[in-house]
């Protein structure tokens, strides 16, 4: 009983803090719009096959007698070169982009965060070893490295996602390591060490939870960047393969027709723009709220 009371006392301020964070986030107009848009995107992503007016046009059917029709009531965003409804395909593209974006960032976090924490909290030689490896990765331009990896793995959406994860994790390692170094000197870590807590436990239950705020900010901004990179890889033919309704791939195909069919490039392009924008807005909002310097001003 007593034990539970103690842990409740420990958790209560955290819950309060979280609620305050959410409150502050929602008070910012732009962030609130971004949050609403992200809810909408997630909703679309989950229910895309049911929302799409021509669900067979997503992957299965071709309908060439209706090719390259301008937007009309039957086809809200017009049709593509094989007569498929662009509106349905853009809706479904949301699922692909969000899924691959979240997964790629998730994988990067899984690799990057523990490595950063280990580097920051361990002996100098472990730190050196990990950080020099990240330096090697960071010395390549991000997109170029992703292109190279995707080219080696072979063109497909999964491989593009892997390629991005592999080229993205070092950023998180850097951020976490910086945090971990300062945390290492803090009282509670020293205390944990003094009572003989194992090293790995210190890393995973004391250091990582306390340096997660800047990582969350970075990750939410990165989702936009990752979606953009996947679109770029697909545009180059290294990502999704036809007939997958991936936005970058759709824009890539539309290049051939853009002189006579503006809608074909425009709507997938807008979809990318909006998605990347809202994730960046959310990231900005999160940074303002989670950074102690700007949090008080709000």
């Amino acid at each position: 009983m007593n034990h539970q009371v103690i842990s409740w006392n420990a958790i209560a301020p955290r819950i309060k803090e979280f609620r305050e964070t959410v409150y502050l986030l929602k008070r910012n107009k732009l962030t609130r719009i971004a949050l609403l848009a992200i809810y909408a995107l997630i909703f679309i992503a989950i229910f895309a096959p049911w929302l799409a007016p021509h669900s067979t046009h997503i992957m299965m059917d071709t309908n060439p007698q209706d090719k390259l029709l301008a937007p009309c009531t039957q086809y809200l965003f017009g049709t593509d070169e094989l007569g498929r409804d662009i509106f349905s395909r853009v809706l479904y593209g949301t699922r692909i982009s969000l899924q691959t974006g979240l997964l790629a960032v998730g994988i990067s976090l899984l690799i990057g965060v523990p490595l950063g924490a280990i580097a920051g909290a361990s002996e100098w030689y472990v730190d050196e070893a990990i950080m020099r490896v990240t330096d090697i990765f960071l010395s390549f331009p991000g997109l170029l490295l992703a292109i190279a990896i995707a080219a080696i793995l072979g063109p497909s959406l999964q491989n593009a996602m892997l390629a991005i994860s592999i080229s993205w994790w070092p950023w998180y390692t850097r951020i976490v390591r910086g945090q971990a170094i300062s945390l290492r000197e803090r009282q509670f870590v020293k205390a944990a060490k003094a009572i003989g807590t194992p090293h790995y436990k210190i890393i995973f239950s004391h250091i990582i939870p306390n340096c997660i705020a800047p990582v969350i900010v970075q990750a939410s901004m990165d989702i936009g960047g990752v979606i953009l990179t996947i679109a770029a890889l697909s545009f180059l033919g290294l990502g999704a393969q036809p007939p997958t309704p991936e936005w970058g791939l759709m824009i890539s195909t539309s290049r051939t027709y853009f002189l006579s069919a503006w809608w074909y490039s425009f709507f997938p392009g807008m979809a990318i723009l909006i998605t990347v924008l809202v994730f960046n807005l959310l990231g900005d909002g999160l940074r303002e709220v989670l950074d102690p310097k700007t949090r008080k001003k709000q």
Partner: protein
Amino acid sequence: MREKMLSNVKGISSLFTILAIAGLLVCFSVAAATAAEPKVALYIQDTEPILDWDPSVESGGGMLVLNNVYETLLRYDATQKKIIPLLATSYTQSNYGMTWTFKIRKGVRFHDGSKLDAKAVKFSIERTMKLGKGMSYIWAPVTKITVVNKYTVKFDLEWPAPLDLIATSNYAAFIMSPKAVKSHNQDWLSQGNAVGTGPYVLQKSTMGEEVILRAFDDYWNGWGEKRYDFAVVKKIVESSSRRQMIEKGDASATVYLPAEDLDQMKSNPNVIVNVGPSLENTSIMFNTQRAPLDNKLVRQAFAYAFPYKKVVKYAAGGYAIKARGALPAQLWGHSKSLFQYSQDLEKAKQLLKQANYSQNSRKLLFTYVSSMEADKKMAEMYKSDLAKIGVEVELRGMPWESMWELSKSRKVEDRQDIFAMLWWPDYCDPYSWLYNMFHSQKEILYNLAYWSDPKFDKLIDDANYEMMFKKKKSLALYHEAQEMLLDESPSIFVYDKKNTLVTHKSFKGFKDNPAYPNVVFFHETYPE
């Protein structure tokens, strides 16, 4: 101090820039005053202008460039169906097509100044045969080349073959300067050098991008009043950029525009859409070495599942006709009475059932050239119809080079299952066509169905043997061979393409010759 030095450097460099610009302006005005601006023909295409500069080796898209720099003994006019003399003025055959004698044109000079004679012809053909690369097999019947006198050369053959047609080949039949080739090492030509007799001289070649050719003043056939002083062949991948450049008059000619663009450009008075018959055809090659397509019934099912009509109408945009048999309608050996598949999904399903095709088998890999919009559309339509009979296909658009590389992987498991192929003749002969795509090959070159059947090999070998003197029998054998291909279905014959070369109205004199697809002989053309 550092900043001051920097600003000094800046001052000096800007002074230099001004001087350089002034100098350039002077140069330009002098040039403009002394000579008229040189006329440039710009040909833009979606692929590299050339892959290998060695005329004995190149077997890809380099024929446009090579046919302007080098010449062959004879040329084939596919619209008139006759052979035109080029470096040879006349030829005779004797000994039942086993001996061929060519009279070589006098007064022809190579770009290095040396003279063309019978020795040069012998040297060039023997070099090609000895290297044994690319399309060199076209000379396989030749056993001996003899220089009879300075301007007469004799070919002895092992079996009767149409050597006059072989000498018109798109590839591997070019005559090069022995003097230039001998005085350099083996790779000299491949490294981007060329010494031919053609109307244009190689000025500059940037591999993978652009080739600049300069008119050869001493060309044996002379020059008309108007000519293009330079001919440039450039790679521009985006079809929309190519269309815009032609419409604005920045480019003279281009190929492989999507059908939608062609339809719209027909009404533009500034461009000419040249549509004509071609010897190019599109087919789909099945991997006959690997399950499930090693089964004839499955292949037949796949042939019945193919949406022929839709593909001709929408993928090729109507710039094609449905194929009948392996050989295109314009080629000798084609037969109008051959069986023709048409789409029948019920029959396809039935055949799959008969073949015990498992619905849960692996996804089949279908590769096509990513820059070919028509092939991409075809692949997507086919995928959608195959799904209806329970076959899952994964599409992969690739650059031709990597797609070809993958198809020649050592392990059969690494290769694709379905391959979209575009084929055109090296020389206008059914044997070369069928040999390349379906004859057993020790080392895979273009037989990308990996098809091997001694009965088929014998049929076309015999047909080729009879071709010179028993045309009817030969034709019957080719018919039988094609029926066999249709029954065994190592490949789906999709459509014969129409040639669609778009030119700007200022680009005159272009004559379409289907024997040399997409080749412009710049000597024939002139600006207006």
